[in-house]
């Protein structure tokens, strides 16, 4: 009996959620017979089931609704909005009753008869209306895909069973790893090895499949939205067209639960504050019906959920004024903020821009709660507002709560994990762009002119540092309140996909852990909570937020007329600067790799020869030095090696030269601080570094006969070396009129029709007659010259 009852409740609740949308869709299109039937069937089923489960109130309610719907089905009246409202009210009551039955509480004592009468009344009213031609104009609503999902065959499983399965598979993975370790020690039997590999593959597949069982289509997340939109827009007297897209994206079911509330809140906000009333919209020259688009898509390991409206957008100044009047910031502080930072003020706790508290929003639960909820699950909320045109709220949340990409780091001899999403950047503390200062126990790290609060993880968790060779790592970490901070750790070990489990309350009580994980090595590890660490360390993050805004603006301003340059010392001793974007990397190259041939310097790097910047004399490298610091300079075509004495720093360099003074290697001088620095003539460097007879291929070469060995072995490499793309005859249908076709035999009509330039090659040294325009295939120079000429002719034609 109990089992029957709980099954009934579970099923009814699920159908209710889906049917709210059906009811809303029916209101939009009262002529849709399928929707009406679906709604009718639901009440019919509920009525039937509760008859033998002895639930009289359920029965009475569903009976009344069924009656009305049955009459409508019979052609007596239309499902207009008052009727739908009454039906929805009955559905809500049934949901309440379900909840009561489920929790075992006393059933709520409310008068069902009133609802039933309301239903009858609406319906009777509707019947009278039939006489008048005032049939409601159907409002367009894009239907959610709830109905299509019913087509797939499913079974209901308790979540506990799935978790058990997950654990079982994790056990298997660990056992496999142990076997793998044991196998590595013993002498390898190839047969055993292949069997083990197969087993190993099966287990990996199984783990993937099991983790998919936790996934759920996002349309479940969207299920409640149409009802919310309908109810809220009716309450507010606004007309809204809802569009939902991407319901078939899948995400973790727990994640769906976590996102429902923030999403509903954002939708309510859009309806309440964003979309204007029909009159306002008319005045603003917009369509009376507002647009609300909700979409979900997967982007890497994240789900991007966007709520876009075409309402009035966020009035940034109003928000700023509110922040000032609430005493959260002073007017000066606000004035210093960048536009972005001002927009983000909407997330300030305790802020509501609604002029009055409406029934819909403005009850103190604001965007700050939305942001906090999303960030708690490792997500990000961002806003794009166009005043008068609309607002887009974008939520990016990870696919799953249980498997996250994490970084494994070591501090005080212990290993910890931190979510990859929390880390912005990792630097070594000996990096020249980093300076760390201590003042009264507090540590400030300045990285590229940005100041950050810094804390060493060992100090937070109270363990002694372990001395080890090599630099410590500084992680720039996102904190919950906006301003990132720097976490100093021993070093960062590696990066792994981690299965996260909740930690015991005694562990969570410390506030610096977010959970625990069991990596493949079988050694449990704690997951750090970046926000918690900042709090535990009592880092002053909020007041610094203002500085950040100012810094941003200043940086933006400065960026308009500067570029980033790398300052270095030439082997000859001059201090020069080069555009950082041209420098691919800086590396130390052993002296032995430098060589000279035909008066040109080159460097052997990783099995390749790279030209070395010509005006540097290798002889200047001190003989006692074993390695030379080299900058790898490249544009999209050329790559070369630029040996220097040392690299100093990265600077913002003004685009305008302080003193233009081209002298070959340098184009002039700029002032960096109070130093004068020569600016490298990048063009000259790249020009000097290239090959001497660098061809400029303007065409593709099509070799018609792709079966011929000579073509394959000799001709194609020759052309490729000269820099031309080689296409084989078999692919020639892709060839265009700009191609140059090389024929050794066969007919040329196909290519002539296309208007392609044709070069005929002959194996004999002498032409067969005066009309023979072919080129001897051993005359490489003539061939290349011909191709080049034809290419130029084509290009100018």
């Amino acid at each position, binding site marked *: 009996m109990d089992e029957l009852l709980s099954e009934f409740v579970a099923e009814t609740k699920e159908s209710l959620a889906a049917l709210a949308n059906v009811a809303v869709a029916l209101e939009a299109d009262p002529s849709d017979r399928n929707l009406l039937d679906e709604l009718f069937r639901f009440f019919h089923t509920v009525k039937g089931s509760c008859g033998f489960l002895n639930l009289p109130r359920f029965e009475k309610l569903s009976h009344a609704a069924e009656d009305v719907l049955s009459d409508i089905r019979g052609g007596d009246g239309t499902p207009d909005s008052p009727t739908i409202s009454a039906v929805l009210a009955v559905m809500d009551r049934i949901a309440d009753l379900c909840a009561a039955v489920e929790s075992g509480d006393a059933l709520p004592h409310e008068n069902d008869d009133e609802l039933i009468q309301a239903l009858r009344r609406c319906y009777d009213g509707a019947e009278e209306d039939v006489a008048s031609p005032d049939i409601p104009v159907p409002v367009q609503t894009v239907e959610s895909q709830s109905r299509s999902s019913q087509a797939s065959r499913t079974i209901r499983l308790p979540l506990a069973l799935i978790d058990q399965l997950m*654990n*079982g598979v*994790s*056990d298997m*993975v*660990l*056992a496999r790893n142990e076997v793998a370790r044991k196998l590595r020690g013993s002498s390898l039997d190839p047969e055993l090895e292949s069997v083990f590999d197969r087993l190993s593959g099966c287990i990996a597949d199984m783990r993937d499949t099991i983790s998919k069982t936790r996934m759920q289509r996002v349309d479940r997340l969207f299920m409640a939205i149409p009802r919310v939109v309908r109810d809220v827009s009716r309450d507010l007297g606004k007309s809204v067209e809802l569009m939902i897209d991407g319901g078939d994206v899948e995400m973790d079911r727990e994640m769906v639960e976590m996102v429902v509330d923030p999403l509903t809140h954002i939708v309510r906000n859009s309806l309440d504050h964003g979309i204007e009333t029909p009159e306002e919209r008319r005045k603003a020259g917009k369509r009376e019906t507002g647009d609300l688009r909700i979409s979900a898509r997967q982007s890497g390991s994240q789900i991007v959920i966007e709520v876009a409206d075409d309402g009035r957008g966020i009035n940034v100044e109003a928000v700023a004024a509110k922040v000032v009047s609430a005493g959260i910031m002073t007017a000066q502080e606000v004035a210093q903020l960048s536009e972005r930072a001002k927009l983000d003020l909407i997330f300030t706790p305790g802020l509501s821009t609604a002029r009055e508290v409406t029934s819909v929003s403005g009850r103190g639960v604001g965007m700050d709660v939305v942001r906090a909820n999303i960030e708690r699950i490792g997500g990000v909320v961002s806003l794009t507002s166009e005043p008068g045109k609309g607002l887009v709220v974008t939520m990016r949340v990870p696919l799953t709560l249980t498997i996250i990409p994490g970084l494994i780091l070591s501090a*005080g001899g*212990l*290993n910890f994990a931190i979510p990859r999403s929390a880390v912005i950047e990792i630097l070594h503390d000996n990096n020249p762009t980093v300076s760390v200062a201590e003042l009264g126990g507090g540590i400030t790290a300045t990285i590229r002119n940005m100041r950050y609060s810094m804390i060493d993880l060992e100090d*937070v*968790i*109270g*363990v002694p540092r372990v001395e080890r060779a090599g630099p410590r790592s500084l992680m720039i970490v996102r904190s919950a309140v906006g301003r990132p901070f720097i976490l100093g750790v021993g070093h960062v070990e590696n990066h792994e996909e981690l299965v996260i*489990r*909740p*930690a*015991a*309350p*005694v*562990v969570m*009580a*410390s506030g*610096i*852990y977010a959970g*625990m*994980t*069991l990596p493949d090595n*079988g*050694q*449990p*590890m*704690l997951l750090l909570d970046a926000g918690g660490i900042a709090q*535990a360390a009592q880092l002053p993050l909020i007041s610094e937020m203002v500085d950040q805004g100012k810094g941003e603006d200043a940086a933006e301003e400065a960026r308009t007329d500067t570029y980033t340059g790398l300052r270095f010392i030439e082997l000859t001793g001059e201090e020069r600067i080069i555009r950082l974007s041209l420098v691919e990397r800086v590396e130390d190259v052993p002296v032995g790799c430098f060589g000279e041939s035909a008066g040109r310097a080159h460097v052997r790097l990783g099995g390749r020869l790279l030209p070395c910047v010509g005006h540097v004399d290798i002889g200047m490298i001190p003989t006692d030095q074993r390695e030379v610091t080299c900058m790898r300079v490249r544009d999209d075509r050329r790559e070369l090696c630029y040996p220097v004495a040392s690299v100093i720093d990265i600077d913002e360099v003004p685009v305008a030269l302080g003193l233009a003074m081209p002298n070959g290697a340098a184009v002039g001088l700029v002032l960096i601080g109070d130093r004068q620095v020569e600016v490298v003539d990048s063009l000259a460097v790249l020009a000097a570094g290239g090959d001497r007879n660098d061809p400029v291929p303007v065409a593709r070469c099509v070799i018609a006969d792709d079966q011929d060995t000579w073509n394959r072995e000799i001709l194609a490499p020759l052309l490729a070396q000269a820099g031309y793309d080689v296409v084989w005859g078999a692919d020639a249908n892709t060839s265009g009129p700009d191609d140059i076709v090389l024929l050794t035999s066969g007919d040329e009509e196909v290519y002539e029709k296309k208007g392609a330039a044709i070069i005929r090659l002959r194996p004999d040294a002498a032409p067969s007659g005066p009309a023979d325009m072919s080129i001897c295939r051993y005359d490489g120079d003539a061939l290349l010259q011909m191709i080049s000429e034809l290419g130029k002719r084509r290009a100018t034609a």
Partner: protein
Amino acid sequence: MSGLYLLARIAGTAVAIRTDEVEAVVRLREMSPVPSVAKYVVGLAALRSRVLTVVDAAAMIYGADEAAPTVRSSEDLAVVCEIGGHSYGILVESVDDIQTIDAPALPVCGRVDEVWRRYAAAVIEHEGQPYFILSKASFFEGFLTTQAAA
């Protein structure tokens, strides 16, 4: 209160735990320490694919800071049980036996050490020896109160 009991020792004191509250008794080898949490949390240990939060029963009862007779066994025997959805390994000094005890629970007699009063509500006798009856509930409460104090 008759039934199957796990007879163990915590810091020299004999205790009996109902076996239906215990999942297993395991010997833990490697543990990852957990810094900056309550001192009685010894660390995390992996039991197959599960992660146990390992707590030291003696440290919990006596408080880790006090010079209590925390005679912890060298072999790290842990009683595994699940409390509030989390798996714990409770380190005990030794596990002596599993016995069906067919006797009524007796009230605690004598002036029991202050620290034990919170956890031990009753005594059960087996072969003439008294044992404190420890229950998961009494431990769980212990966790909650200690956590609130932390």
